[in-house]
């Protein structure tokens, strides 16, 4: 009988210090969930800015537009005295130049597409003297200015427009956005630590007498701090998990909307393949499961530090 009574009295997950009440299971997890949701958004922003910057730099930095006014006019060819149009002269240079990785003449239809926003449907059958436009991708380390000189030499009036300046400005913008994202992430982590510290101090104040009793019975700082840390870690991990789960649909929607910009393809916003969404957001999907772990780690370390510092008041 006594045996059975004793077994019944031995509780599972013994709570000597009464922390279940002192560190309630509502406030802290809810706050941490909100912060981990914000952290997921900040992280997504930072990752998106980084991949946009990389994408632009890769794609646009090496791209140059060449405009040839009155492309159909024939010129005498210097090498053999034959004739070629101004466009053909430019294409010959582009084909032979080591600076050019690839070159493509835009079709009349593509030109009309470019003009339509300004001219409306008139662009389709306008009899304007349009220049020829060649989209050129430069080889690595190529100098757009030298190419410009060479082209203007065979077909005077040809304009070479480098995107470098704009790409530079966009990169700076993207990098700033990225820095803001990381800063927001750091700030959220710092606020999380502060919230945990306040909650732990409140718990210490509420259970002061119990802590002094247990301390007097010979519990070490590590014992007492460990009990607080276990409780706080469980609460912050739960909060982090809830926040990360809540962020999944929001992030999926954002990535889906951003997909056309990231992939460089003309894709309808909502028709993007789910697998592509997974692929584009890979860094985010990898970081998201880490959110509860990081939240738990912040909780553990902050609680340990706060309790140990507080215990120094006792002899």
């Amino acid at each position, binding site marked *: 009988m*006594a*045996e059975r*009574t*004793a*077994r*019944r*009295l*031995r*509780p599972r997950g*013994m*709570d*000597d210090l*009464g922390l279940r*009440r002192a560190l309630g299971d509502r406030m802290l997890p809810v706050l941490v969930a909100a912060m981990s949701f914000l952290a997921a958004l900040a992280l997504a922003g930072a990752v998106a800015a980084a991949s946009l910057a990389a994408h632009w730099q890769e794609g646009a930095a090496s791209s140059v537009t060449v405009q040839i006014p009155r492309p159909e006019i024939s010129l005498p060819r210097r090498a053999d005295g034959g004739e070629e149009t101004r466009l053909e002269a430019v294409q010959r240079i582009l084909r032979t130049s080591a600076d050019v990785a690839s070159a493509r003449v835009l079709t009349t239809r593509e030109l009309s597409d470019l003009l339509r926003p300004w001219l409306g449907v008139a662009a389709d059958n306008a009899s304007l003297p349009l220049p020829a436009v060649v989209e050129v991708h430069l080889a690595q380390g190529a100098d757009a200015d030298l190419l410009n000189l060479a082209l203007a030499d065979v077909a005077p009036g040809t304009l070479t427009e480098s995107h470098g300046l704009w790409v530079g400005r966009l990169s700076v913008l993207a990098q700033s956005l990225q820095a803001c994202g990381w800063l927001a992430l750091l700030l959220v982590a710092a606020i999380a630590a502060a919230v945990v510290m306040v909650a732990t101090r409140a718990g210490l104040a509420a259970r002061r*007498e*119990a802590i002094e*009793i*247990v*301390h*007097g*019975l*010979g*519990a*070490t*700082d590590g*014992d007492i701090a460990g009990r607080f840390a276990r409780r706080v870690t469980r609460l912050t991990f739960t909060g982090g998990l809830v926040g990360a789960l809540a962020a999944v649909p929001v992030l999926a929607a954002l990535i889906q909307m951003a997909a056309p910009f990231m992939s460089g393809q003309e894709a309808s916003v909502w028709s993007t393949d789910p697998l592509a969404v997974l692929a584009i957001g890979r860094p985010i999907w990898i970081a998201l499961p880490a959110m509860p772990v990081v939240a738990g780690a912040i909780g553990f370390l902050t609680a340990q530090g706060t309790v140990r510092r507080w215990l*120094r008041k006792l*002899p």
Partner: protein
Amino acid sequence: MIRLERVGLQYGAGATAGPDVLRDVSFVIPPGGFRWLQGPSGAGKSSLMRLLHLAIRPRSGKLTVLGTDIGAASRATLPPLRRRIGMVFQDFRLLMHLTAFDNVALPLRIEGRPEGQIRADVTEILRWVGLADKAGSRPAEMSGGEQQRVAIARAVVGRPSLLLADEPTGNLDDVQAVRLMRLLAELNRLGTTVVVATHNDALVARHPGPSLRLESGRLVADG
């Protein structure tokens, strides 16, 4: 062994330092010794008990408890020492959210004893203090005398080397008081050093023994 050499104590420090609570207190209690600690209220009995319980450190002089110089000891050396000291507080200091069983089991759990042994020891000691049927009760559901017996059971369950008791019979009826004094004598006979603070002169007269007397923070009698 307990040794005090010109021990002084005051609460607070610097500008906020209070008056001396203890002044130049010196005495020795050999291992396995017994001492009454007597004196009027405010004489410094409780402060001396707190010193011996390592809840405070002396401001001056040298305090040696269970062979360790407390003034010079690092913080980390104190918890193992505290586990060898049992203390019965005047106000019991039980954890109100725990049952009698868990309150008594607390020192053993802190020590990391196996749960099976804890069950046996706690059940045994609760039976001894006459609270076997109250094992599942919380302190709020018990009388003052029953709470005091829980506090006593918690102090002795770990078989401490030093047992400190501050007015341990205050809430006990005569039968329980006699039982307690017999328990203290028995522990003392088995080698535990025992110090009992009281202002109940009748109790001391019934159980004569060597006595320390404090008055206004000074030791005025030893023996």
